[in-house]
């Protein structure tokens, strides 16, 4: 059976999504809905917004992000997620691994095409 594109994406997201979320926090804390909206903009990184919350909970428990409450201009206070130093180090390590990985996958795919 050939796996469909959605199944392949699910597998690929599993290894990369948490680092994308972390990287997104590099410029400053964001709240849940904000992160979800950015990730679903192209629906490549996140298919269902709800799956973000187990991931955020896990990142917080791993000490890669921390949460703070901030007043919202509209409605109740918001829970903001901010990157910790450990989270910053994790993103940096991922970036170092990702570039050669991406290049190798690209190279393998192009090689296959030209044959």
């Amino acid at each position, binding site marked *: 059976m050939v796996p469909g594109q959605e199944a392949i994406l699910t597998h690929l997201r*599993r290894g990369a999504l948490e680092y994308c979320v972390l990287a997104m926090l590099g410029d400053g804390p964001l*709240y*849940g*809905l904000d992160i*979800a909206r950015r990730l*679903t903009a192209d629906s490549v990184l996140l*298919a*269902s*917004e*709800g*799956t*973000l*919350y*187990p*991931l*955020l*909970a*896990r990142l*917080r*428990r791993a000490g890669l992000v921390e949460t703070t409450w901030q007043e*919202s201009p*509209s*409605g*109740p206070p*918001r*829970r903001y997620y901010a990157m910790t130093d450990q989270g910053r180090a994790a993103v940096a390590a991922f970036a170092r691994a990702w570039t050669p990985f991406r290049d190798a996958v690209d190279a393998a795919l192009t090689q296959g095409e030209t044959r």
Partner: protein
Amino acid sequence: MNVTTHPAVARYLDDLGRMLGDLEPGERAEVLAGVREHIEEALGDRPHGSPQEDDAAVAAVLTELGPPDVIAQAAYADRAAPADDRSATRVPLTSRAWVPVVVALLQALSLLLVILVVGSSVGWVEESSTTSGGETVVRTMGGSSIAAALAGGLVALPLWIVIALLVGFSALWTAREKVTHLLVVPVTALLFAAGPSLGWSLGGPTGMVVSAWTVLTLVVAGGGWLLYRLTVSARRRASAAR
């Protein structure tokens, strides 16, 4: 609008909470809180107020969140690796590495019991031979060795049942090895019952003594070797399964 009062939202959060039931309580509460806040925030962004607008907004927000089971799946998938490890190490009780050792010890204990019971009865018979005439003792000897072996077998029966349960349910022995394990004690008792009588009928008192010692040597050496082999092969399987 208080979102938890909308029936669709309440149902959604209820379903999600139930599906996250296997998570650690703190983690479950954290995921639920995140989703609830997301719903509140997202509903605030949409036109709401009238029942129709509320219904439409709730439906749209919940659709974007995705079905609760997809969220639950994501929550459990994060832990997929450790969960897999755990299920791999969750070996059935009767197939753990200590089972062969315990079975071997129980078998040794059973053999010892049989030997002791048989030995003490024979000793008693021999002792009686010093008081009464040799002929009378000799005549009862065949019967008494069977009785002694039977008594030994009976004493060892509770242990044999424990052994049978452990070995029977275990996946560490092949069917043939299991049969061997279960035959060790009965065959021992049988040898003790038949050996001396046979020795007597073949060679008189000397034959009986020789056959009794032969049976004892056979049981200790052969049984010991057999148990050792069975235990080693089961231990190998237990460590391979880990």
